[in-house]
């Protein structure tokens, strides 16, 4: 008995260095400074406190979290975590526990939450299509298959939420963009835009919720849809941005996210090139190209729009570069660790959290001084998602 107590005591001391198994938040608190870090190989998330720059606890049992992402309930209390294995888990950040978990498909890639917060949509690779759930119960609301013109099922990518209970997504195999209006959740209206280009691989919606842009892997160019004028259809933008140049092999697909907007400009990763494309949001004209360290994966604007922070594909993925928006010059280069997968700014941009997968840590930087403020241990960390996303369109 005595021995067990001692062993337990030692165990607790050792555990003190690591996040506790269950959240002990104690008393009332808000969630505006909370978030999660995905530990992809362990099937867990850490709940983080961005004010204290610490991990509060881990929540396990979330399945295969490779390429996992999350959205948040509008009260900022629950994270909806989308796993690669088709799992959709609703995690209570305050209690540090899984409220409900369903496996809704064989293989999925991401999700979105509707503007009202009532519907959670998941995009699937297998069997393809989009499934929409009630965010309170995770009960199925609608199943939207995604077959192309030839009837073959298509993988769905680039799923985003848009104003008015709308979800927009792209069909990788079928080369389509679809607009699903759930203003009546019992009778969704789906509009299809065909022949948007070869192999759309991801999509973004601008922070105002007006323009949806899908990146194309199979050709140089992007496809844009003005959600205020669906009747105008999808237009091609930056057509042939790399014409005449041989693209490099791509060791990781770039990601497009609404974070790429800084003021009137969008900063988009060029596929197969060591460049960021700078695009004017009004006319979707190319304004500039910025040469960077490697093939960009995420280009994320600091919330004030003054800087864009960029990470890169393998094998150049040990570096984060900072681009000054007014001068469009690289002004800082940071080395948070090996295999930098993701970065997320605190809600108003004073600090940024960066995950270094192969160094098993997440590093926090001051975005003004670029000084390293803290490092948190995490097992193969990938995505970092903060609750402020609950109040933004398309994230």
């Amino acid at each position, binding site marked *: 008995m005595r021995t067990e107590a001692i062993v337990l005591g030692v165990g607790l001391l050792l555990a003190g260095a690591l996040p506790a198994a269950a959240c002990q938040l104690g008393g009332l608190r808000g969630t505006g400074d909370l978030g999660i870090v995905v530990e992809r190989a362990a099937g867990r998330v850490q709940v983080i406190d961005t004010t204290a720059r610490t991990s509060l606890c881990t929540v396990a049992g979330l399945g*295969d979290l490779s*390429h996992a992402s999350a959205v948040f309930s509008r009260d900022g209390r629950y994270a909806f975590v989308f796993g*690669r294995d088709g799992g959709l888990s609703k995690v209570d950040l305050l209690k540090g526990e899984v409220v409900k978990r369903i496996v809704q498909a064989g*293989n999925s*890639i991401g999700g979105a939450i509707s503007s009202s917060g009532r519907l959670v949509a998941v995009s699937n690779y*297998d069997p393809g299509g989009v499934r929409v759930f009630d965010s309170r119960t995770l009960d199925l609301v609608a199943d939207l298959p995604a077959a192309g013109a030839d009837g073959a099922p298509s993988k769905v990518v680039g799923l985003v939420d848009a104003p008015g209970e709308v979800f927009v997504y792209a069909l990788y195999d079928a080369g389509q963009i679809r607009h699903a209006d759930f203003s009546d959740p019992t009778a969704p209206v789906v509009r299809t835009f065909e022949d948007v280009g070869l192999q759309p*691989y991801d999509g973004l919606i601008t922070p105002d919720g007006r323009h949806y842009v899908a990146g194309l892997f199979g050709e140089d160019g992007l496809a844009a849809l003005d959600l205020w004028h669906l009747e105008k259809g999808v237009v091609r933008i930056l057509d042939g941005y790399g014409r005449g140049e041989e693209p490099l092999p791509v060791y990781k*697909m770039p990601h497009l996210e609404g974070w790429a907007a800084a003021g009137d400009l969008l900063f988009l990763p060029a596929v197969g090139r060591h460049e960021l494309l700078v695009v004017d949001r009004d006319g979707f004209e190319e304004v500039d190209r910025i040469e960077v360290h490697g093939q960009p994966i995420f280009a994320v604007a600091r919330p004030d729009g003054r800087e864009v922070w960029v990470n890169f594909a393998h094998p150049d993925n040990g570096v984060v570069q900072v681009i000054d928006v007014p001068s469009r010059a690289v002004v800082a280069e940071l080395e948070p660790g090996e295999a930098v997968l993701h970065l997320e700014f605190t809600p108003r941009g004073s600090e940024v959290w960066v995950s270094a*997968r192969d160094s098993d840590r997440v590093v926090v930087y001051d975005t003004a001084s670029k000084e390293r403020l803290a490092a948190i241990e995490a097992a193969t960390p990938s995505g970092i998602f903060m609750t402020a996303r609950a109040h933004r369109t398309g994230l």
Partner: protein
Amino acid sequence: MRLSAILLFAGLALPAAADAPEADRQAELLHRLRHDCGSCHGMTMAGGLGPALLPAALEGRSDEELARIVLDGVPRTPMPPWRFEITEDEALWLVGRLKEGLDED
């Protein structure tokens, strides 16, 4: 002397088998497989934007053909060539691990 002769003989008896990488390199290759190849094929190789690479999916395809895909990629698809950092022997070894199935961990 005697021992090395036996090893030499054993080596000659298996001309088709690729030289297995050193243990450290094996661990590195498996890590790459799960996490870098896994960004398209899934960490468990169950597929993603790229096809599944589970044993059943690879049945009937030769080691050499699969290793060539790893090394040279597949044109007009996102599959890139890995020859710049993976040798032919290493590619064959990885194909062997995929055909066996990766451990659950």
